[in-house]
């Protein structure tokens, strides 16, 4: 369920956006015992020139925005991607009806950056 929310200061800059993933939405409810869903978030937004510190950018991304500002058609802006994620644990049935508790890395987007 992706619903835009209107932040207090409207911004199209690269940042995490709320995304709640419901496992029944993706058709996994027969396998997953818990959780039923979780706040996974996603990254969306612009990486404009000049890139400011809070946009978590690499040196390469800073150069790319400069080139984009000179030649917008030829060189795109850097991409807004997850740069810090955290894990969650999922309780589920495997294909042999065993109960499994597994720790999955990189499941929640905490921070976005320009790359």
């Amino acid at each position: 369920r992706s619903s835009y929310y209107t932040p207090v200061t409207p911004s199209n800059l690269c940042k995490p956006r709320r995304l709640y993933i419901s496992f029944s939405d993706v058709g996994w409810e027969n396998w997953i015992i818990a959780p039923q869903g979780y706040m996974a978030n996603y990254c969306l937004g612009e990486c404009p020139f000049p890139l400011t510190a809070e946009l978590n950018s690499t040196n390469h991304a800073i150069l790319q925005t400069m080139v984009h500002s000179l030649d917008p058609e030829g060189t795109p802006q850097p991409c807004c991607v997850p740069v810090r994620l955290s894990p969650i644990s999922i309780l589920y049935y495997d294909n042999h009806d065993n109960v499994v508790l597994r720790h999955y890395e990189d499941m929640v987007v905490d921070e976005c950056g320009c790359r």
Partner: protein
Amino acid sequence: RPRESRAPALRFVGPNPPPGAPAPVPAVLWRIFQRRALPSRGDTAPGPSCRVEEFNVPGNIIRVFADQGHFIHSGEPKTFLCLEKRLYFNFSVLEEGEQLTMAQLEINFSHNSYHTSSGRQVFELRLYQALQMSLRGMSSHMYNHKLLVAQSFAQLHKSLLFNLTEVAKGWRTPSRNLGLILEISVGSRDSALALPPRRLQNLCASIDSFLDTSLLVVSLNQKQCQASRKR
């Protein structure tokens, strides 16, 4: 989307939903899951992601295997054994690159303790590792087997736990996974055989509350742990 295109780490969706009534979720897994999902205020931050604090072993996957073995009816008149059962856990689900770090067998009984009318009655439990099937078929004693545990009990708690980590590590090789043989008898073989058959039968009846066995296995998938450490 074709199955292959799914990220392997999240590949637990089978072609069909789990069959029949889903297996109950063991309380220990619920506890660990809830502790990770909702660390209580007093908790320190969750431990390293590749360690199971509750068992103090490395691991990022905990599985509870249901026993797929069967009761053994040797067809001969009842011996001194009240219960004879083969236990088998299908380890084929363990993925390559997973390192088994702990295996704990749990034997559950439906009620806490046995009160026998004539004072203290001692039961004996023996657990054997089946090593090799003999040519003569499936009866428990047709296997070469090795005694793993011999324990007597009078006051029984709901469940008995046995650490089978070393034995389970050997089961990663399918041809060596012939499971276990569980025997429960009224006392030792001689004392049981000295009892009148009816008395023996009555004592064995109290063993009927045998409920089930399961194997909790903790394993570590190095690839997934290293990835996070590298970053």
